[in-house]
């Protein structure tokens, strides 16, 4: 077990290296340079001034050299300084040590996605199971339609409609951000409530879009499992249906879902870019969006590397989970 994990961990290193190499070249291939935002269409900017700026950012060197320099720093866990005008260290932007943990961008994005993931699983798994056990009933059809509608609706559009309904017309929930203006003056429970109120809409939007995939996988794998002989045996020996489904079928039906969860990390991070912008949430996705627009290479690379790392960790955790629930894999 330990040996296997160590092996998996070592395998991650070349994969991560490959991902950063490809990412680095791709973002440098995109037309435009970080100096564009500073100098484009600015009548006071001369070509000499541009050159000075490019030299300042180290963009005059060949791309291989740039990658080498970048890699050298990253190995020491230093993602460099942002190319944007504030010149702050990239790590400081993603994980600002001067702010409380709950205000740090990586934490915000991570927690939102974790919460969304938990909500998705809490809803998708029961929906999947019940649709499987009630296959072809009206309930199955309704849930199927609902989750597919959720899957098909563009999340930004749904977000705006919900904001209009709950924020403007009903005036129940705040529209954007993660806390109110008067947050600091609230008592502890008031703060918790304030946070919760701000989280409802974003979490709902992420979760609604993510239900379809998970619940459909759950349904199909459940359908497959309940046709297996051992389920028939369980029923034949007179076990109550509840026990047959949740004790015998459920565990085996869960296996494909675990892989799916591990693979969903990049999708969630990508989704963060969209909903963090709509809901005005100061997370990593919003930072990434601004970084891409400004061609802020160190920032983009840092977020991509962190994203890739989280994805690989997700895969690893999925594999470990797989081993825990499936003795067959453990034996290998």
């Amino acid at each position, binding site marked *: 077990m330990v040996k296997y994990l160590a092996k998996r961990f070592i395998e991650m290193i070349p994969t991560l290296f490959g991902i950063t190499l490809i990412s680095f070249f791709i973002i440098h291939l*995109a*037309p*435009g*340079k970080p100096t*564009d*935002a*500073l*100098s*484009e*269409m*600015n*009548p*006071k*900017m*001369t*070509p000499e*001034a*541009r050159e*000075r*700026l490019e030299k*300042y950012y180290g963009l005059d060197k060949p791309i291989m050299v740039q990658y080498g320099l970048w890699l050298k720093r990253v190995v020491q866990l230093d993602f460099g300084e942002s190319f*944007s*005008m*504030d*010149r702050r260290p990239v790590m400081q932007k993603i994980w600002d040590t001067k702010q409380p943990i709950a205000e740090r*961008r990586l934490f915000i994005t991570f927690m939102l996605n974790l919460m969304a993931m938990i909500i998705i699983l*809490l*809803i998708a*798994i029961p*929906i999947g199971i*019940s649709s499987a056990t009630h296959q072809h009933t009206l309930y199955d059809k309704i*849930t199927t339609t609902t989750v597919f509608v959720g899957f098909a609706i563009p999340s930004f559009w749904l977000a705006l409609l919900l*904001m*209009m309904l709950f*924020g*403007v017309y009903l*005036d*129940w929930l*705040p*529209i*954007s*951000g*993660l806390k*109110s*203006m008067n947050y*600091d003056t*609230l008592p502890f429970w008031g703060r918790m*409530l304030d946070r*919760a*109120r701000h989280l*409802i809409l974003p979490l709902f939007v992420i979760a609604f879009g993510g239900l379809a995939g998970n619940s459909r996988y759950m349904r199909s794998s459940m359908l497959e499992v309940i046709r297996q002989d051992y389920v028939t045996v369980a029923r034949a020996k007179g076990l109550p249906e509840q026990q047959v489904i949740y004790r015998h079928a459920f565990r085996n039906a869960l296996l494909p879902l675990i892989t799916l969860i591990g693979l969903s990390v990049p999708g969630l991070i990508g989704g963060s870019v969209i909903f963090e*912008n*709509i*809901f*005005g949430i*100061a*997370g990593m996705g*919003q930072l990434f969006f*601004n970084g891409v627009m400004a*061609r802020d290479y160190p920032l983009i690379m840092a977020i991509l590397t962190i994203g890739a790392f989280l994805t690989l960790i997700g895969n690893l955790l999925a594999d470990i989970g797989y081993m825990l629930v499936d003795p067959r894999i453990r034996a290998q």
Partner: protein
Amino acid sequence: MKKALLSIGILLFLFLLTAGCKQKVSIPETTAGMQAVNGQPVFGDALIEGTIGEPSNLIPMLASDSASHSVAGQIFNGLVKYDTDLSITGDLAESWDVSKDGLIITFHLRKGVNWTDGVEFTADDVMFGYKTIIDEKTPSAYKEDYLQVKKAEVLDRYTFRVTYGKPFAPALTSWGSLVVLPRHLLEGKDITKDDFARNPVGLGPYKLAKWVSGQEVDLVSNKDYFKGRAYLDQYIYKVIPDAATMFLELKTGGIDMMGLTPIQYTKQTDTPFFKANFRKYRYPAFQYTHLAFNQKHPWFKDKRVRQAIAYGVDKNEIVDVVLFGLGTPATGPYVPNTWPYNPNVTKYGYNPEKAKELLKEAGWQDTDGDGVLDKDGKPFEFTILTNAGNALRKNTATIIQWRLRKIGIKVEIRTVEWSTFVNQFIDKKRFEAVLLGWSIGLDADQYDIWHSSKTKEKELNFINYSNSEVDALLEKGRRTFDIEERKKAYFRIQEILAEEVPYIFLYVPDATPIVHARIKGIKPTAIGISYNLPKWYVPKPLQRHALAP
């Protein structure tokens, strides 16, 4: 099944719970109250402005985004500034003298102005700012004006003198807030790395209280501001990256002020709610949108073809349809009712007959009867290129496409992401016509856009416009301080541009901010509304926010 119901139940419960306990800032005013209460300015309350982009750097010389300049503008002042009639007036400089030959400017600074940390502002601070901006190591996009300075000297504590090699008309206005920095805090430090950019000490009407990255920038009034403490205690910028979300926040009272789009201005805010609770303002923005022709392109080399296209486009229609009437048809590269603007130039009203005539003269005729003009066997087809993500420009291009089709010209529209657009098409001069906008500085000098020497890659005369008379006039306009002389030069330039049509000047859009009605003291002028922000106030009964002790 049961579990599914349970979780849905929990979710619903959560909804009801949170909906029940909403805590809301009480809004005391009624519609009638808001109209009636006026009276004397009083201190208190906060103005919350929505901003799409977050400021990046509060040192003005290092910032190039409008969000940063907007915030820094409340924290720093300059030696001079523009008055509401676009003349130049003193700010930190009480007065100044310009030598007869226009080469030496001597600023006499105000005495007794303090930085917010209590240290007095002196000529050394200006000198420090100047030395910093011309420093090789300072990555500032605004260096060029200061590199024209031959000599700068501190004559005494309150006198600062600069000497130029050649007379340079934009010289005076360059001594704004870009070069005023506290020497006592920054000397010997690397300003690109110092914490100052996120935690500045200024001397303007507001000072920075709190900056939560990606969320908000809170300013509080500087009680010792040399022109008197601002009435609004707080000025808060709330970062809302999505424009639709921002409008919803405006509706629910989350923000007090934002810039509206034309459709928001004319339709979405045309409701009793908005009329009662908000005031809208409208004035020409300092920018214009144009269709620029590549002067090297064989078809567009012919002046008659450019004129014909100008006749074939209906500017009024574009203003009405694209801007919902919120703009003015442009006739040249200046904003109407500003001193360099020449109202008496050739105007190209919509006249398709004349357009066809001119095209015929230039040899364009529909010989094969397919509805598209042709010459030497080639149909008249060209592409208008513009940047993606700007709906106004795309709509404008579409209308032009439709109008030009009527005079037998086939137009394709292509939109490209900004960075790609500039690098691959503008810089390489790979375009036939582009639809773009220019922001116009408050000074009339447009040397970089029209002078024939400015056509290299990355320079701004990317259409390769070249006219020796315009070159001479541009040179003349920036080398004299005499406003009448300058006016003559710029008037003539506009006549030539109108005759030669290197660009079709389409429209000057209006800026359309909206501000909550409880905020009083706003007086719109040619330079907008925010110039007198420290004088804005909220009458006591209407105040909403109190400063936390």
